[in-house]
Structure formats: C-alpha cells, structure tokens
C-alpha cells in the first residue's frame, strides 16, 4: 500500500488487527450486498466476543449466520433477525444478546457515527419498547427520542466497483446499508467485484468517496438469493 492506493491482496491482510470483543459495523440487507468473503475470513480467524451492527444476521449457513456456528458473536444490533434457526436458538438460550433497532434508525445511527454526529432525535420508536429509557423531547408538539450514533472498530462492506483509491460505486439494491457502514468504522474494509485504475471512474458517478475507505480487496461472490421470486412469461 502506498499513497492513496487502498488495495490489499489477501483477506488476512484486509482484516489485520481485528481482535476479540471488537465492534463491527456491517453492510448488507438480507443476503443482498453482504461482504461474504470478509465474513468467511472472520470465521477463519476465529475472532470471538464480537458485537455486530447489521440490519440482519444472515441465514443458516450464509452471511453472518456462519459466525453463529462457532459462537463468535456476543451481540447483534439489528432490525430483523428472522430466517435463522441457529440465531433463534442462541437468542432464546441467552448466549446471544440482541438489540432490536428500527431499520431507519439503524441506518441513521451508522450515518451519524460516520458524520461526527453523536446522537439525533427521531419520532421512530417513541412510546414503544425501543423508546424505553431514552431521553424524550418535544419539538413542534411532537415527541421524539434521542438515539445515539454507532461507531465500530471495523466496518466490513461490499461495493460493486472501485478505483484503487477506494472511490466506490454500488449496484442496484446491493447498496443498502453499505455506504453508511463504511463511514462508521475506524478501519473500513470494502470488498468489490472490480477494481480499476485511478482516473477511470467518472467522478460524477462515484457513490462514496475513497476518503472513507481504508482497505480495498477484490473478491468473487456467490450472491445467494433468499427469496427467488419470478413471474411466468
């Protein structure tokens, strides 16, 4: 690595410094746009006691579901955790802590974490279990709760295309939580399908500037589909 060149050549190097009990912010929605190879590398490293903020927790055998197999996750911060039998079992037995967070609040907590905003008020969750114990303020006759930003020791994410200095383009709905997750990690690691030379991307078409990206790696992806739904011709 030199200058603005963020490219690393091995997944081991990509996650160098990841230790037990760290917090990771992860991109992806369901199994769409998940950093599948970085997750596999965390499994290979055997890092334990992790707190992971991610909208979902994968499925049995896919995505973050892989890290449940060896009980590597201590706590999940997610909006929806269905579709995963192992997750249910560990949650019900109390080995896995879960902080259910509304989807939009989760996205905004990551965005705020990356944007230097320590907390924000939102109407989402007021008067519900999510609002319990949180500061309430009234603005223009409406109640809002204070939600704190999220930051991670690492963030792991997936983009479609990058140049070597980490300018990123995402593809379709695989963008989802990825841009915010990347900004919220002290060390952000992004895997992509294609890396081009600096200057090859049109600056107007970059979705996330490389300033947020620390390490970049090119991977190959399985892209599993959770609900393959088709219409007939």
């Amino acid at each position, binding site marked *: 690595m030199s200058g603005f060149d963020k490219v690393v050549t091995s997944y081991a190097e990509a996650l160098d410094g990841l230790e037990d009990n760290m917090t990771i912010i992860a991109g992806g929605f369901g199994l769409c746009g998940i950093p599948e190879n970085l997750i596999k590398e965390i499994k290979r490293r055997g890092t334990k006691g992790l707190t992971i903020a991610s909208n979902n927790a994968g499925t049995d055998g896919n995505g973050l579901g892989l890290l449940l197999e060896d009980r590597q996750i201590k706590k999940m911060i997610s909006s929806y955790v269905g579709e995963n039998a192992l997750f249910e079992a560990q949650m019900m037995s109390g080995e896995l802590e879960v902080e259910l967070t*509304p989807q939009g609040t989760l996205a905004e907590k990551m965005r705020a974490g990356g944007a230097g905003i320590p907390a924000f008020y939102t109407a989402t969750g007021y008067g519900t279990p999510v609002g319990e114990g949180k500061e309430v303020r009234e603005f223009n006759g409406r109640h809002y709760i204070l939600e704190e930003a999220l930051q991670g020791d690492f963030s792991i994410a997936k983009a479609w295309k990058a140049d070597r200095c980490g300018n990123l383009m995402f593809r*379709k709905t695989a963008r989802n939580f990825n841009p915010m997750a990347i900004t919220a990690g002290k060390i952000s690691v992004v895997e992509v399908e294609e890396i081009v030379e600096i200057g090859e991307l049109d600056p107007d078409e970059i979705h996330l500037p490389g300033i947020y990206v620390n390490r970049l790696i090119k991977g190959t992806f399985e892209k599993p589909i*959770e*609900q393959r*739904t088709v219409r007939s011709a």
Partner: protein
Amino acid sequence: MALTRDQLAQRVAQEFKDGYYVNLGIGIPTLAANFIPDDMQVMLQSENGLLGMGPFPLDEEVDADLINAGKQTVTMAEGASLFSSAESFAMIRGGHVDLTVLGAFEVDCQGNIASYMIPGKLIKGMGGAMDLVAGADNIIVTMTHASKSGDSKLLSKCTLPLTGKGCIKRVLTDLALLDIEDGKFILRERAPGVSVDEIAKLTSGELVIPEHVPEMVF
C-alpha cells in the same frame, strides 16, 4: 362475507391516486400492486433502497443485487431510482411518501398499532415498520378484524408491545373500513354481505356507527 386477500388488496388500491409514491408492506399490502388502475401512475417504494419497483422478474431476469424489502427478487419500473437505506428512510421519516400500507396484530382507538412482537413467542424484529408508522401521515393498516376464535383485534387499548403510538387513522379489515378519530373507531364501509351488527360485535374499542354505512364496491 369476509373479504378475500385479493379483495383486501383491491380495496387498498382504491386509495391510490395518480402520482402517488406508495410503500407497501409484506403480505396483503404487496398484493395491492396488482390492482393499480391502468390509467394511473403509482411509484412503489421499497425501503431497502428502491423507488419505482417493478413486477417480479422473468426467470432469466433474476438479479441477486435487486430485491425488495421482503428479500424477494424484483425488477425496476421505468423512472426508478436507487439509493442507500439512510436516504430511503430520510424519504420515509421526512414524510415524502404519500401512502403507507402495512399489516398489524392489533390496533386501538387511540391510533396505536402493535405489529412486530408477541412476548413469549419468537421475536423477529420490527424491520422498517416503526419508521414507516412514525414517518407517514397517510397510513392504512390491513388486518383481520378478529382472531379465529372471535377475539377482536380492534381494541380500546393494544395489549402487545407497540410499533407506534397515536399514528394510525385508517384501518381496513376483512369485514370493514374504519377511521380512527378522537379516540373512537368510525365505521365507514362494510364488506359486501357483512352486517353492521356483526362488525360491532367483533369491535372491542369504542365504535361510532354512522346512519349510513355503505358496502364496499369492487
């Protein structure tokens, strides 16, 4: 007769207006997309980050990078746009979506809604439902009026943990269309062949019955 799933979806679609941006929840709300009138343009928002959702893909069109909020493969309609989840919920929270339709376990006559959690049973999470009910002004809740054993789901006070407080103004059940005003349910329409008495019997929260309650027309 109680409305079928398709009739519920059809009645929801009658609330669409030309030029509306609409977020449809998983289940019956999603079916409403099948009943958008041909002479009307409605753009569907999928909260994972797509505005302008099209129909399910043909087998050869399936793209793992293009899914809806229910994680189903979809396509994009003409004029679609793509964005991050933060942008998506900015649209929702900021009140830019014209109509939101979602399901529920219970609603009450204070406009409270419970839709994401049954204590003691499996907890799957609220997904985007809390943001949607807090952000939208125009919401229709679709649900069954009562449980199979005849217990009302339209209550004076929700018994389950809330998804949102005081945010619901319109409920469409398999038996009736009701508004919520000043702490009361107002019966607006009944399903074809369903009597006002039958609806009243299965509504546990305070119910106002106007002199004339028309049958729904399909």
